[in-house]
């Protein structure tokens, strides 16, 4: 499955490192990545492919939340179909 990983919070050293290290550990491939500042918030968005992941895709969200819990950011992992449904006709 392909999913959108989004990280929102205050900018800090190590956010991208923490997320990408965890994804690498779980064998999840990062296909696209962008980061921006939106309304004073750091926003990082990744499109990832979890087809070869070594954990069930539904547990990715929990894993990433744990990996970033000390950074004070909010992490979501959502199936790309959600965005296809809501943002594309």
């Amino acid at each position: 499955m392909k999913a959108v990983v989004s990280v929102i919070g205050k900018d800090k050293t190590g956010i991208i490192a923490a997320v990408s290290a965890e994804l690498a550990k779980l064998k999840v491939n990062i296909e696209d990545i962008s980061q921006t500042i939106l309304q004073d918030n750091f926003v990082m968005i990744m499109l990832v492919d979890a087809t070869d992941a070594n954990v069930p895709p539904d547990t990715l969200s929990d894993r990433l939340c744990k990996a970033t819990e000390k950074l004070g950011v909010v992490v979501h992992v959502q199936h790309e179909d959600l965005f296809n449904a809501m943002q594309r006709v």
Partner: protein
Amino acid sequence: MFTDNEIIETIDMLDNRHLDVRTVTLSMSLTDCISDDSARCNAAVYDKITKYAERLVPVCAMLETRYGVKIVNKRIAVTPISIVGAACGDYIGLAKTLDRAGKTLGVDFIGGYSALVQKSATKKETEFLKTLPEALSTTDIVCSSVNVASTKAGMNLDAIKLLGEAIKDLAYRTRKTDSFGCGKLVVFCNAVDDNPFMAGAFTGLTEGECAVNVGVSGPGVVEYEINKHPDYDITKICELIKRTAFKITRLGQLIGSAAADELGFDKGVVDLSLAPTPAVGDSVARILESIGLERVGACGTTAALALLNDAVKKGGVMASARVGGLSGAFIPVSEDAGMIEAARLGAINIEKLEAMTAVCSVGLDMIAVPGDTSAAVISAMIADECAIGMINGKTTAVRVIPVYGKTVGDEVNFGGLFGTAPIMRVNTADPSKFIDRGGAIPAPIHSFKN
């Protein structure tokens, strides 16, 4: 890839604007459980429900994780029990069986303790209507609906009289919980067969074996979008609501079809109703206020609600393969922070709410009235509401709660999604001669509309 704004907007709707799937409702037929042997009928009903819906709750939990979307309620809607239980006559037993089956599965509600008596009631159906107070006061999650009128069949005043009495009796029997039993009973005109929302969900006889119907909600999203554009004229506001309703409904469509695929049942309908909750930022009343009214109930409320309801339908229809249920905007009083506030301030009354029901989904919903309101007055409220639905060819409904021992100025708290209800004033002039006449109002003429 999506743009950052698209992703942020979606997440913002889900995290901060209360966009959620209000319910995934599994609709199933129980006609094959009918038996003249009460034990056999009850066993068949329990077995079928627990077998078909076994995976409903876990599948919904899995979808919540996959999409990061909250599914607030998991529900089941069955064939009207007045039909399933007619041969054995054990209506109360079946109510308890539904309650037990629903609790075993961990669903929030199970609907279908229902009867369709818009033209006339059979002997068995009349017996059934008389079981409503006992059935709803001795079960927890069973919901009931009775269709007493339709545009095609007219209005059954005999049934309406019985229901006024049943609601009073139910209020007394559940007096320890502020007569909350009445919150589980809705009286309809033009009830729909595929409604996923409670208390009115049942599986009509026109439906198939089993289907997944979804009710999606998000009044907070609509309010937020309108507030961003104070400069828009009304035409642009309608367009904005349409666009927002489109996105909201697409979410329902996604979850509905994913749930149906996982469960192996038919994809049913998406009901794109804006259903409020008492939470701040999840209110239909606040949408009307954001359009430009000082407070819901002001002159202009009916017009604002009409445009909201229509724009929601227009946006939603294109977003979903099959739109159904009630689809529009709900205006329950106790379940909407803006409505509660307006009722407390006396800014809205039952007469204005009745007018509003002529242009939106459903009707007089979750309204607490004084405990000494007579059965005849309640019946007459039902008759008025049915008249609006019958003549205008739309669904209307009444879910009023005559709170035992309480009067105007008091307030009751039903907890959770059911919210807080200030007791509202009711016109107490006596309509009992009208109600006591009984009989039926014939179906209205469908021409000469004016």
